[in-house]
């Protein structure tokens, strides 16, 4: 049956309600099993030795003493993970990041690993590994790394995307460009122009669960990996590629996941654990310490962004331009490109141009973090937009409303929008009571908008109907924040049965077809699409079974309210058959009843949000408290509103942390100074007020219920919303995130000096 994903307005019974989540009891009783909560018989403890240098050639590694230590069962280095990338730069980068080959590229880069019978032996063994380094000059700052005299990290990096192609290597991996119109002509028409440079510091996803896995390689070529991941199928593929295993022989089981936010879409130590297990011939459990998580797993880019925006006195933006420089760690990614794409996505612009520069530096390899690359760009653009509105004397919301993109606008990154939520979220902000609430002394209000694409991608779902008519739905997208509840709701809706009769589970890689990972806000969007498709297939089967039971034509049977109903004058006296009725007879009508779906979910539906933030700043210390915060975002359709609100609140608070205090601090030696939660300051409970939310529902035309991804957009506006609020509270503009107390005080001092 061909699946029609288009949106149809309909009365919904389950979708939009707030039932208890299916995994709740396990999680409040401590029974849910996360990455580190799994053990195998005979398992060893794995640990990784990491470079203390930001940039160093590995001259020699001597593992003999460690190998000789009693209780050590395996020691691996790059030699045990030979390069099988066949010239594929992306695969090689992953491999090199898992285990440094010729050079350590950042403080914390893995250089060797051990598997031993317990943690103390493993710790002792690490100390016995001798690594001789030749320390090289390093660079961590994005602007410094782009300078002509910067130490070059990788002699094979020649900037792509520039004409003519450069003849000398540099730290600039690529250039990307987006936009349309003629910005110079546009600026010529402007009455007022704001031109600024903004900087943001590197932050970490900060999930509370460190990376953890148990790896087991058997002598027959089969292998198992239990791991906390956002993408078991992707981990399987990458690990199989790096280790030369058959994909089908490596079974990856995703544990409950203690937060990921993008950081668990990339492999880190998992291939190392598999290599250790292969060498030792025993299962290996490898759990990163918090320090390792900060030093060696995915932070975001640090950025330096130039923005120039011009507008007429009436508030029309005539041209907008941005140059965005993003660090990517030692290996090129597409972070600047994403920043360049998202920069001006909220606005309908005649002339717009963005240029992204991807810059390699001696910092850990950048990983996706919730709407990756968008928050920094939004900080720069939304700060400049705010300043421009002030300058032309227009209300900041009205100015944005005047320039907001809408249905039919050509986006700054190319596509033409369908129905979108930027205008409605701005209108909602304008009329929100928060906007007109009085402010106290030293308080200021800021607002900002944000955009995220959302992704769909490859998805596969199995729906099985039990003999009693209850339903299990097996999905391959990991549940990072309540998606099992949402998918159960959707399945119940489509089948017309109660929520309680559906149980959603996350399948391992051997039990289900390939699924892309839970990222790009795709979990609920794409798996619900597949769940609806699978349910429709199961309904078709049930109608056929009902036809057999009744001995009438399937064409005379409709599916309504969870029942097969016979239609037509001759069948009037047949009582409808419930799912349970049909399931009970399954053995006599053709066997078990199931519905499957494999699809590529297209049209995830872009998402917009507008945030309002009040802060109070102590002008004598620069101390800043968020005193009120409101998130307004388009969800398309909120399947389980509690968890949609939760995504809005969680993203907003991560953004607030980024805006105020979170940052990687490097010493002059290029070593990370704050690899722990004491000095890497994520928001704590007492830092925050309640986070108000307002869910708008502008249906996504490409989903049967109108669902859009909701997980990421909420982290995009806060950096600018907070910075704008601070600027309004103390009347000095902030250009550098985080707007930590020392930066605020320094800005105030500079202003006082004139």
């Amino acid at each position: 049956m061909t699946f029609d994903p288009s949106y149809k307005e309909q009365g919904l019974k389950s979708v939009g309600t707030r039932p208890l989540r299916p995994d709740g009891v396990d999680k409040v009783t401590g029974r849910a099993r996360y990455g580190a909560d799994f053990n195998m018989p005979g398992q060893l403890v794995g640990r990784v030795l990491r470079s203390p240098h930001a940039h160093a050639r590995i001259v020699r590694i001597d593992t003999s003493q460690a190998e000789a230590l009693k209780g050590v069962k395996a020691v691996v280095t790059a030699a045990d993970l030979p390069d099988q990338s066949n010239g594929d730069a992306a695969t090689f980068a992953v491999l090199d990041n898992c285990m440094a080959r010729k050079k350590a590229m950042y403080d914390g880069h893995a250089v060797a690993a051990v598997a031993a019978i317990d943690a103390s032996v493993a710790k002792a063994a690490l100390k016995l590994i001798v690594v001789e380094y030749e320390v090289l000059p390093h660079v961590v700052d994005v602007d410094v790394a782009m300078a002509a005299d910067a130490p070059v990290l990788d002699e094979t990096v020649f900037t792509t995307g520039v004409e003519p192609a450069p003849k000398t290597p540099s730290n600039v991996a690529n250039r990307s460009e987006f936009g349309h119109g003629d910005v110079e002509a546009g600026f010529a028409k402007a009455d007022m122009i704001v031109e600024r440079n903004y900087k943001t510091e590197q932050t970490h996803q900060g999930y509370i669960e460190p990376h953890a896995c148990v790896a087991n390689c058997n002598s027959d070529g089969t292998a198992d990996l239990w791991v906390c991941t956002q993408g078991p199928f992707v981990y399987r593929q990458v690990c199989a590629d790096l280790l030369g295993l058959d994909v089908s022989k490596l079974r990856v089981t995703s544990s409950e996941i203690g937060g990921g936010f993008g950081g668990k879409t990339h492999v880190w130590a998992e291939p190392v654990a598999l290599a250790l297990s292969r060498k030792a011939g025993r299962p290996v459990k490898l759990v990163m310490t918090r320090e390792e998580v900060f030093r060696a797993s995915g932070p975001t880019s640090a950025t330096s962004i130039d923005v120039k925006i011009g507008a007429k006195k009436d508030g029309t933006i005539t041209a907008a331009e941005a140059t965005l420089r993003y660090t990517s760690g030692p290996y090129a990614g597409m972070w600047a490109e994403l920043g360049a794409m998202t920069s001006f996505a909220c606005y309908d612009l005649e002339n717009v141009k963005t240029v992204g520069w991807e810059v390699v530096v001696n910092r850990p390899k950048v990983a996706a973090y919730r709407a990756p690359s968008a928050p920094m760009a939004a900080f720069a653009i939304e700060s400049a937009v705010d300043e421009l509105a002030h300058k032309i004397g227009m209300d900041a919301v009205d100015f944005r409303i005047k320039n907001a993109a809408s249905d039919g606008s050509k986006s700054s990154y190319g596509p033409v929008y369908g129905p979108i939520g930027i205008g409605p979220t701005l209108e909602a902000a304008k009329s929100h009571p928060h906007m007109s609430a009085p402010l106290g002394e030293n308080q200021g209000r800021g607002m900002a908008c944000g955009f995220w694409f959302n992704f769909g991608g490859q998805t596969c779902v199995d729906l099985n109907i039990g003999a009693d008519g209850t339903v299990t739905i097996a999905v391959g997208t990991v549940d990072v924040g309540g998606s099992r509840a949402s998918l159960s709701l959707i399945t119940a809706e489509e089948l017309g049965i109660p929520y309680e009769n559906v149980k959603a589970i996350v399948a391992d890689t051997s039990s289900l077809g390939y699924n892309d990972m839970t990222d790009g806000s795709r979990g609920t969007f794409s798996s619900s699409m597949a769940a609806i498709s699978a349910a429709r297939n199961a309904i078709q089967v049930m109608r056929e079974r009902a036809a057999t039971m009744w001995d009438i034509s399937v064409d005379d049977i409709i599916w309504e309210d969870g029942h097969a109903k016979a239609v037509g004058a001759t069948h009037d006296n047949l009582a409808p058959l419930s799912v349970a009725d049909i399931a009970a007879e399954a053995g006599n009508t053709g066997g078990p009843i199931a519905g499957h779906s494999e699809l590529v979910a297209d049209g995830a539906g872009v998402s917009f949000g507008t945030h309002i933030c009040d802060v109070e700043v102590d002008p004598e210390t620069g101390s800043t408290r968020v005193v009120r915060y409101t998130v307004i975002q388009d969800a398309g359709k909120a399947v389980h509103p509690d968890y949609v609100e939760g995504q809005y609140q969680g993203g907003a608070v991560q953004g607030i942390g980024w805006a105020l205090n979170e940052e990687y601090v490097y010493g002059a030696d290029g070593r990370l100074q704050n690899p722990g939660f004491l000095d890497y300051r994520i928001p704590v409970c007492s830092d925050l007020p309640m986070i108000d939310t307002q869910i708008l529902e502008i249906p996504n035309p490409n989903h049967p219920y109108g669902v859009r991804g909701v997980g990421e957009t909420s982290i995009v506006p806060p950096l600018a919303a907070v910075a704008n609020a601070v600027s309004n509270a103390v009347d000095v503009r902030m250009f550098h995130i985080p707007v930590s107390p020392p930066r605020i005080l320094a800005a105030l001092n500079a202003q006082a000096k004139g």
Partner: protein
Amino acid sequence: MTSIAVSTTINGDDVEFLCNADETLLDVLRNRLGLMGAKEGCGTGDCGACSTIMDGRVVCSCLVLGAETQGREIETIEGMSEGQDLHPLQAKFIEHAALQCGICTPGFLMAAKALLAAHPDPSEEEIRFWLAGNLCRCTGYDKIVRAVQGAAAEMRGAKT
């Protein structure tokens, strides 16, 4: 390394175990006793995911040596519900969607339990400061605070 024999009480039951001198209570619970409800988010007292209650005070079990628990009374998340009956805090956490990934939840529940034992009617500010040593990266804390408020109200109601 010679092991130390420790007798203690965990969730009301007598428990004996052997541990090394440098093993923490968290190591003992997770690796020796199979009580894996307490989570290790940092191992250094910063995240609260490993919170347990020792002699009535909430502690980070990653900052307590196993050997120190000799003769003490320990409460862990595994002892919070009575049979099939969830503690009001547990029920309210589910009801208020106060967990997303849930890794922080056992720690929050233990800390909140100690809070409500000491302050049955805490203000929002008291709740927020008491729970400041429990990090949650998913929820933004809003629904957690509401769940604790809800449980406090219910528990006060149950007493009168």
